């Protein structure tokens, strides 16, 4: 049993940010604002924030195939240190997670190795090629939480329509990547003055809208539940708003990087800032922050994508895309809080409650009876990020050397402490 006293409780479900105490028993939240039960371990939070653990949709772990980049062990340790208590993995592995056998393998590996909860998305089509649908039924039985081809956008709309229709009949959630693959082919950055001056191939922001519009047509046609992994440009927002108003079963996410960085951060070809989709203009970044604050964009994710040094130390166009983010997710999000763009319950709605709800998980809440997946953090504690200190096997963070605020003090999964700040 655990009893947290002197806590600042962040509850996204009720939208409250208030002092209080919390009691945990048998891995569940047992009481709010009660007294410490007999024999409980009392944790004096001394005013620090206690919030539901982060639920992160779309994390890449290198199993199977690329364990040198990230294993379930290293990803789990990084997540625990970052206050992420549930990782939802992407299936863009090598090979892709597209059969129940591979899914069972990674599920077992993850359970053995990770201190935090790990759930898996499965590929929607075989080898993520957009042609033949995977065994969606078997994969659901084996524990697939959603279906996605990640950033491989299929162009065979007939096949996709069939996969969506089939998924709909089983109540499966599709996670799409809104992008028009023809228009975005070969792009390394967002088109515009910066791209032109650097001489880098750019993609027009409209490619995201085109991809989103197509996916919405398929959703309207099939009735499937759909989550857009990342909406990153202002041009997509009216289409998202319309889709929701029309009653489509649609939600949208955005990565923490697209909320805190813009295209100019690439500077002199810094490949750690090369992401998919590419970083956008400052106007787009501001529009995304506002859309999250207003609830139009439902979910913030880390899009954790480990890449080794060799794949990043290349000319920009040839370098790998993506950034690690499990450990920097929370401090990066604190920048939005300190800038006054969002309050803490609002952030936790997007980082814990909404993703859990979308996936049908009981996490993301401080309600009695909810799983005791918790993060204890100090939103003001400053530090300078040193990438060599990251627990991820890959150190490709865009925040190296950056002054950040927000430190995780302790992380709990089902009432068990999985991380404690040293010193």
């Amino acid at each position: 049993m655990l009893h947290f006293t002197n806590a600042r409780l962040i509850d996204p479900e009720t939208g409250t940010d208030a002092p209080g105490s919390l009691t945990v028993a048998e891995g569940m939240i047992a009481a709010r604002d009660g007294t410490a039960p007999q024999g409980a371990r009392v944790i004096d939070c001394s005013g620090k924030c206690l919030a539901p653990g982060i639920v992160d949709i779309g994390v890449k772990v290198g199993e199977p195939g690329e364990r040198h980049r990230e294993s379930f062990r290293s990803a789990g340790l990084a997540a625990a240190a970052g206050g992420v208590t549930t990782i939802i993995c992407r299936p863009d592995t090598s090979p892709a997670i597209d059969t129940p056998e591979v899914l069972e393998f990674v599920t077992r590996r993850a359970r053995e190795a990770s201190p935090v909860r790990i759930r898996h998305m499965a590929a929607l089509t075989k080898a993520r090629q957009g042609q033949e649908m995977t065994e969606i039924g078997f994969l659901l039985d084996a524990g697939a939480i959603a279906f996605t081809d990640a950033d491989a956008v299929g162009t065979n709309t007939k096949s996709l329509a069939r996969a969506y229709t089939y998924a709909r009949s089983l109540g499966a959630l599709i996670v799409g990547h809104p992008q028009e693959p023809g228009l975005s082919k070969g792009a390394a950055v967002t088109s515009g003055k910066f791209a032109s001056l650097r001489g880098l191939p750019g993609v027009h922001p409209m490619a995201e809208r085109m991809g989103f519009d197509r996916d919405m047509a398929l959703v309207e046609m099939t009735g499937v539940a759909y989550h857009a992994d990342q909406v990153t440009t202002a041009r997509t927002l009216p289409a998202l708003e319309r889709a929701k108003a029309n009653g489509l079963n649609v939600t949208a996410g955005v990565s923490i990087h697209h909320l805190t960085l813009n295209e100019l951060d690439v500077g002199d070809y810094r490949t750690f800032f090369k992401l998919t989709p590419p970083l956008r203009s400052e106007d787009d970044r501001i529009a995304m922050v506002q859309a999250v604050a207003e609830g139009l964009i439902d979910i913030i994710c880390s899009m954790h994508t480990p890449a080794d040094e060799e794949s990043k130390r290349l000319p920009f166009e040839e370098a790998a895309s993506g950034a690690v983010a499990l450990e920097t997710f929370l401090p990066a999000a604190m920048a939005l809080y300190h800038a006054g763009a969002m309050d803490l319950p609002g952030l936790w709605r997007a980082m814990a409650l909404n993703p859990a709800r979308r996936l049908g998980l009981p996490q993301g809440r401080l309600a009695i009876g909810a799983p005791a997946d918790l993060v204890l953090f100090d939103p003001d504690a400053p530090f300078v990020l040193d990438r060599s200190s990251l627990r991820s096997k890959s150190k490709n963070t865009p925040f190296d050397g950056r002054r950040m605020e927000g430190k995780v003090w302790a992380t709990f999964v089902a009432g068990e402490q999985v991380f404690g700040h040293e010193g």
Partner: protein
Amino acid sequence: MTFRARHLLGIEHLAPEEIRSVLDLADRYVDLNRRTVKQSDALAGMTQINMFFENSTRTQASFELAGKRLGADVMNMAVAQSSVKKGETLIDTALTLNAMHPDLLVVRHPNSGAVNLLASKVNCAVLNAGDGKHEHPTQALLDALTIRREKGRIQRLTVAICGDIAHSRVARSNLILLGKMENRIRLIGPPTLMPSGVAEFGAEVYDDMREGLKGADVVMMLRLQKERMDGGFIPSEREYYHRYGLDAEKLAHARPDAIVMHPGPMNRGVEIDGEIADDINRSVIQEQVEMGVAVRMACMDLLARNLRAERGAKAAETYV
């Protein structure tokens, strides 16, 4: 003489007075190059390596000659055919060369930013001889020298840059240099060959060539690369020549004393009419080639001075 740079990676990082320093010194090398004995000892004892990851005859020859006239030991590495094909990364190639202690590294590479990456890994001075669609600083400097010698100044001129702006590193470097020197710049070409965000460049943009050439002091033509035709950027060579090829009729819209420039190699009958290219009263294309050697000598001389000063300072530190 003001020139602080350690590398010459682009015009972007040069201040106007640094550009002037290069041009002033290059003027002196033009004189040297016109003598029978064209030798200087500015780079005596130094090693220059030319690394061209992209095929080039003219630029490589120009750099080679420039180095030799300054007394450097010059080595050409045909990397386009060698170790890169064997899978060696750019950084490994750079580290290998670095171990041979070159003093000047001249690099051309098909990827934008590749020369910046390389410069961050070596101890010598790096000259960008063209990286992808990013910059080609010595071309912009030689163009500036040609203009200054022809027009007597390199500011308050109306310069029209015509053709495939989107894919041209020459256009980017010229745009930056001419902007820094306070000229009026016009970009002329079909909208499909204009870079994205062109409206924010501080230049006037025209898709009508005659309109754009009105009152121009300098007409810079760009090479239309054959692969652009396959990419569907323009409908055909003949339509391009009709609308954007420089001929006497279109040139008549520019100032009567306007000069015509081209970085070469030319596609006669595609972007420029043969007669205009050969008209000694208008075309300064041959002068550009001559200025190229002098400008490259000036750049390497200035970088070598900084390199010596830096090494001298380091050596002094070790004695203390």
